[in-house]
């Protein structure tokens, strides 16, 4: 069945079939991992050995090189996850839901890292590990949304229904992403405003910014790589017993 489907559709769309995407993801993942490692080494070298000490925060600011990339990824991944959920609901494509499911745990990890590093940065700079401030609270809600997505999916036995129910939750939760992003503008928060913005450019020292952007790229590459690995696992789980899979895995 799968083979016929793959042969009929041409171009990039053929990769919408799990049978075609499975080997592609397997080929791509190591490259993304390699890029992630190279970028991390370069980014950390700049972050620790080239970028100067901050005149206000001393060395504690060096947490920025993971905090900001993780926080950005936590929001990006949610938007991408919600996008695949939307595509899945509209076009009823199996792979879209699998992509969404593959992104959720990585998104949750990035959110957790953003919260954890934020806490370890807040303690020396603000004198507190945690504050119920708009930015931190909305980021914590993001973590609960990821966990909610995974729990709801796991709680429903029939996978198609689980996909649709979790997708609906993910789409409703999208409203939280602009709230996180604009929280520092809309409310009087302990968290500082954006140092880098699309409209106003950057207010950071060039070397600090460089290190941070390279670490952000590294985070992108890592997330893509690990999501590709996970979507492969999900494809095997869901297509177990399919003829094409027996050939691919054997």
């Amino acid at each position, binding site marked *: 069945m799968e083979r016929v489907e793959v042969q009929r559709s041409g171009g990039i769309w053929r990769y919408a079939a799990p049978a075609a995407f499975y080997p592609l993801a397997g080929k791509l993942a190591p490259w993304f991992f390699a890029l992630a490692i190279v970028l991390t080494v370069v980014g950390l070298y700049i972050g*620790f*050995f080239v970028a100067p000490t901050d005149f206000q925060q001393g060395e*504690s600011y060096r947490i920025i090189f993971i905090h900001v990339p993780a926080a950005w990824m936590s929001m990006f991944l949610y938007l991408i996850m919600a996008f695949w959920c939307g595509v899945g609901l509209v076009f009823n494509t199996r792979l879209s839901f699998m992509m969404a499911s593959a992104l959720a745990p990585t998104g949750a990890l990035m959110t957790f890292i953003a919260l954890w590093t934020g806490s*370890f940065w807040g303690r*020396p700079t603000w004198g507190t590990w945690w504050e119920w401030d708009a930015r931190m609270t909305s980021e914590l809600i993001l973590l609960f949304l990821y966990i909610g997505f995974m729990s709801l999916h796991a709680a429903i036995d029939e996978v198609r229904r689980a996909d649709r129910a979790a997708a609906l939750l993910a789409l409703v939760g999208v409203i939280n992403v602009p709230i996180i992003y604009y929280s520092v503008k809309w409310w009087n928060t302990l968290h500082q405003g954006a140092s880098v913005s699309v409209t106003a450019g950057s207010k950071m020292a060039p070397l600090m910014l460089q290190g941070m952007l390279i670490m952000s790229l590294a985070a992108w590459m890592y997330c893509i790589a690990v999501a590709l690995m996970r979507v*492969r*696992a999900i494809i095997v789980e869901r297509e*177990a*017993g399919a003829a094409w899979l027996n050939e691919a895995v054997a």
Partner: protein
Amino acid sequence: MNWGSAQAFFDMGGYGLYVWGSYGMTALGILLEFYLVRRRRRMAEAQSHRRQLLDEDNT
């Protein structure tokens, strides 16, 4: 170069706990995720293989 010695590097100007506490947890999280994803695929493949063998037995 920012650091005169390895000691100065680990001390991070007195912020060692916070900087390394952040980097350490991040490294731990990523290593754990990598390990779990690999294990998930291996287990799925083993499961699929068992199903295949069962199917062959039944035919």
